[in-house]
């Protein structure tokens, strides 16, 4: 996100200039009312210094008390010194407070500090990477909070503001940081966050860590048990030898280390809540010091899932993430690595939930892991059996350790560089390590002790995968930029129908759909989509022609079509029920399976719709309806467009793509069928579900498109099964396999081979998805990689 700012971003200053003809003189800008932090600030800061002195002094007593007698008389001269220091600190705090001023309004974010050396920091809104709220105990008691602004490598701290104000400013700044326009005045009415967790009203908690679990997990963690065991051993042994005082020199640092651990892992992580906020994930935690931190998902560079040995029976895990830029943070109070904790302790399901937010559709346990060869035991005798690595089309995983079992996950798109390493002993054993470099943070992905050949293959293929992923991301960003463009002028159009963006029902690659009322929806086509006007007009005619034919499935209907502000829109009949895809995410298997059966039924009913032309034909698109002499001619015509644009990409990503292509052509040439209507894209997002007498039933099929043809009816049957695999719920693949078995039972064994052929057909057909949808493209590659073909 650092590299490409959306081009339409104009800085607030520019907008100001463009709306007012006379540029205001710089002096006028200076006169803008600035604010000081909260007046109680010096008090809180003075108190913090007092605490710091007390701690330092306390340590001094502890160390000096070793061996010698403790002398309370030494306190007498110390007290006035403390008094003076506190007084000086208070004065310094007052001065700092007096000279700190800030402006946060619709135009700018500026912080001015310094009594003698003035410093003015102006941060462009788009540069803000995160806005966190930190509340040390003292500040919390008087209801104050620190606002911490991260931009690039610099951190600006505003302390202290009242808590409500800090959280309102945070929400405002995050909105602006995302490039959206907002006015600060709108935010004043929003309800304040709760005192204990600092979650806003709009925040949806995903995972809450109960205190009991946190405490138990801490006591069972390797990091705690090892120093605790060492301490006990030292105490027991030295006590037995009557030499305890001599061991104190070693014990005290150990105890301090353990206290720090308690502080960081227990008190710092208390009340840990991972929440979904309107602008990404948000983490709040802390018993005394409360901190609330936003997690920018697009800046996450890697995920680490760890499990200390004793957590294993409880099935608990710890999850950390590499966040770009957070590694630089100089630990203010030993919190530098705390800010990368996504979950201090969580169950398997909670980890899956969090991973689903960070890497959508990714299943940690689904990836096939490969072990290192057993001869690695000569070098890694202590953990050779735990060394494993694996990858799928989006991420690479390495695994090691048993005292603390660690899995490091790096998305291909985030891979920085690679290193193969081989020491002299490894050379004797023909082993090598592969390091996958990620930005600074807890994730450290190393595939240890691989066979030489495997190491080389892993490294070279990883470079290819990373390159492909980067290219896909670049494309994705371009498309996103176009999409944000679309929002311009859209509100006016929505207002004309008396609706707002909150009526959004769903959005796809070509259009967004908003509810108008119970019977109608507004479909807004995206800019830059090819010939939507022609498509919509052809669809209107097609839908109209089906009005008389009842096949037992609800079908779409375009009531009105128009253009406004250069945006094409149609008013469509609203489907009854709800979207099938959304429902599938949350349904359990006993509900899903009957619904999927009805989905297959609905798909098969669509075949009975009449086609406007006989024979094999494309029904929507340029020159449609266009007839073809044979199925192969039609299908080749369909493939020509997409493969032309994806050809280079496929040659890179599919081994021996020419053979796959030729095989597909010769397979298709053997297919002999009577043509029927084919929707072409029957997938759950295009289906609607209503409550039937015996449970939920798919009752509507929406979104006919340029994919719609008059061709082999089996194409839709195959599509219904294979596109199901793209659904983002956990058991989608299993459901697809089950539905395939059902279809085979209905239509006979021989369709298995044709489903396989159409898998490869759609693999080619949607391969231009590399430009805008990496998940779909990865799916295509999987279809093309299947060892297809038959005699």
């Amino acid at each position, binding site marked *: *996100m*650092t*590299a*490409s700012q959306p081009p339409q971003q104009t800085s607030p200053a520019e907008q100001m200039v463009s709306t007012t003809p006379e540029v205001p003189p710089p002096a006028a800008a200076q006169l803008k009312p600035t604010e000081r932090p909260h007046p109680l600030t010096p008090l809180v800061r003075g108190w913090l210094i007092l605490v710091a002195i007390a701690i330092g002094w306390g340590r001094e007593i502890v160390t000096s008390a070793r061996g010698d007698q403790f002398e309370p008389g030494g306190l007498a001269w110390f007290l006035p010194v403390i008094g003076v220091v506190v007084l000086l600190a208070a004065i310094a705090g007052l001065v700092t407070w007096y000279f700190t001023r800030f402006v946060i309004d619709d135009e700018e974010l500026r912080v001015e500090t310094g009594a003698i050396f003035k410093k003015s920091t102006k941060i462009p809104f788009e540069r803000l990477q995160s806005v966190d709220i930190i509340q040390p105990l003292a500040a919390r008691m008087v209801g104050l909070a620190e606002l911490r602004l991260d931009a690039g490598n610099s951190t600006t701290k505003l302390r202290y503001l009242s808590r409500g104000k800090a959280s309102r400013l945070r929400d405002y700044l995050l909105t602006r940081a995302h490039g959206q326009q907002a006015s600060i005045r709108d935010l004043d009415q929003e309800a304040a966050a709760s005192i204990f967790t600092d979650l806003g009203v709009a925040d949806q908690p995903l995972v809450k860590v109960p205190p009991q679990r946190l405490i138990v997990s801490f006591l069972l963690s390797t990091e705690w048990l090892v120093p605790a065991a060492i301490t006990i051993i030292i105490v027991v042994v030295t006590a037995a030898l009557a030499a305890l005082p001599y061991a104190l020199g070693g014990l005290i640092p150990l105890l301090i280390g353990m206290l720090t651990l308690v502080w960081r892992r227990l008190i710092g992580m208390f009340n840990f809540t991972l929440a979904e906020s309107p602008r990404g994930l948000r983490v709040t935690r802390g018993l005394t010091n409360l901190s609330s931190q936003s997690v920018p998902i697009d*800046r996450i*560079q890697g995920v680490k899932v760890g499990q200390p040995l004793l957590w294993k029976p409880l099935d608990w895990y710890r999850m950390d993430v590499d966040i*770009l830029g957070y590694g630089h943070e100089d630990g203010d109070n030993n919190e530098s690595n705390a800010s990368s904790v996504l979950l201090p302790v969580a169950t398997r399901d909670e980890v899956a939930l969090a991973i689903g937010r960070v890497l959508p559709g990714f299943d940690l346990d689904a990836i096939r892991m490969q072990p290192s060869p057993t001869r690695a035991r000569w070098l890694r005798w202590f953990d050779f059996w735990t060394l494993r690595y694996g990858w799928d089309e989006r991420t690479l995983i390495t695994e090691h350790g048993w005292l603390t079992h660690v899995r490091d996950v790096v998305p291909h798109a*985030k*891979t*920085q*560089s*690679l*290193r*193969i*390493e*081989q*020491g*002299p002993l490894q*050379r004797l054993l023909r082993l*090598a390590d592969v*390091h996958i*470099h*990620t*930005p*600074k943070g807890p994730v*450290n992905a190393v595939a240890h002790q691989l066979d*030489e050949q495997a*190491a*080389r293959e892993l*490294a*070279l293929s990883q*470079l290819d995968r*990373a*390159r492909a992923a*980067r*290219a896909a*991301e*670049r494309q994705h*960003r371009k498309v996103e930029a176009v999409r944000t463009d679309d929002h311009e002028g859209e509100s006016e159009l929505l207002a004309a129908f008396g609706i707002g963006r909150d009526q959004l029902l769903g959005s796809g690659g070509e259009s967004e759909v908003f509810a108008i009322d119970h019977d109608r929806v507004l479909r807004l086509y995206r800019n830059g989509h090819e010939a939507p006007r022609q498509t919509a007009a052809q669809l209107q005619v097609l839908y109209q022609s089906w009005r008389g034919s009842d096949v037992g499935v609800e079908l779409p209907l375009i009531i009105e079509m128009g253009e406004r502000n250069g945006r094409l829109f149609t008013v469509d009949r609203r489907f009854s029920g709800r979207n099938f895809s959304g429902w599938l995410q949350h349904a359990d298997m006993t509900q899903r399976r009957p619904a999927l059966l009805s989905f297959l039924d609905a798909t098969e009913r669509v075949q009975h719709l009449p086609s406007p032309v006989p024979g094999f034909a494309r029904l929507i698109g340029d020159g449609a309806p266009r007839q073809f002499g044979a199925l192969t001619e039609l299908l080749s015509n369909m493939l020509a467009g997409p493969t032309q644009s994806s050809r280079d990409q496929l040659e890179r990503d599919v081994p021996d793509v020419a053979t796959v292509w030729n095989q597909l052509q010769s397979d298709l040439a053997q297919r002999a069928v009577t043509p029927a209507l084919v929707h072409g894209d029957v997938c759950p997002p295009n289906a609607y579900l209503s409550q039937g007498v015996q449970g939920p039933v798919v009752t509507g099929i929406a979104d006919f498109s340029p994919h719609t043809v008059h061709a082999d009816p089996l194409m839709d049957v195959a599509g219904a099964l294979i596109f199901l695999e793209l659904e983002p719920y956990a058991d989608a693949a299993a459901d697809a396999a089950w539905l395939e078995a059902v279809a085979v039972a209905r239509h006979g064994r021989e369709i298995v081979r044709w489903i396989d052929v159409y898998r490869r057909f759609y693999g080619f057909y949607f391969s231009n998805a590399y430009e805008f949808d990496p998940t779909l493209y990865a799916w295509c590659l999987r279809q093309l990689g299947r060892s297809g073909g038959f005699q």
Partner: protein
Amino acid sequence: MEELFAPPAYEWKRLSPKYRSMQMLTNMVIPPALLTIAAVIVGVTSGKWWISGLIWAVAVVIVIISPPLVTRSWRSWGYVEREDDLYITHGIMSRSLIAVPYGRMQLVEVESGPLERAFGLASVSLKTASPETGARIPGLTPEEATRLRDRLTELGEAHASGL
């Protein structure tokens, strides 16, 4: 160079022979010279010349084993600019191969210390967002170093992708 570290279908580019000369100087001349001075001081101050003898013996060993080691180490270095990434390899005992995709380079630096300048050498380092990358090519001629820097910067821009 064996299979594991060879770049596919490319030839390694080697370092300038002057780098070997510089390494010879720093390994074969300077340590023995320092050891000799130490030996003389020990001998003169303590009068125990047998200790000096031992120190000299170490210096002699260094002089004898340096040339083959330096040559091997010099030969172990290699780099190659591939289509999408830069490969660097080096090391005799512990070998490594680093691959840095052009799209990930954030910074390309040319450095030349006083000793390197005296030998007419420069080194190029590549920085990515990861501190572990540590990709550095020493012992290049200044022309090659500048060429490489310009070429890499250009390729970096062409392949640039956000984080």
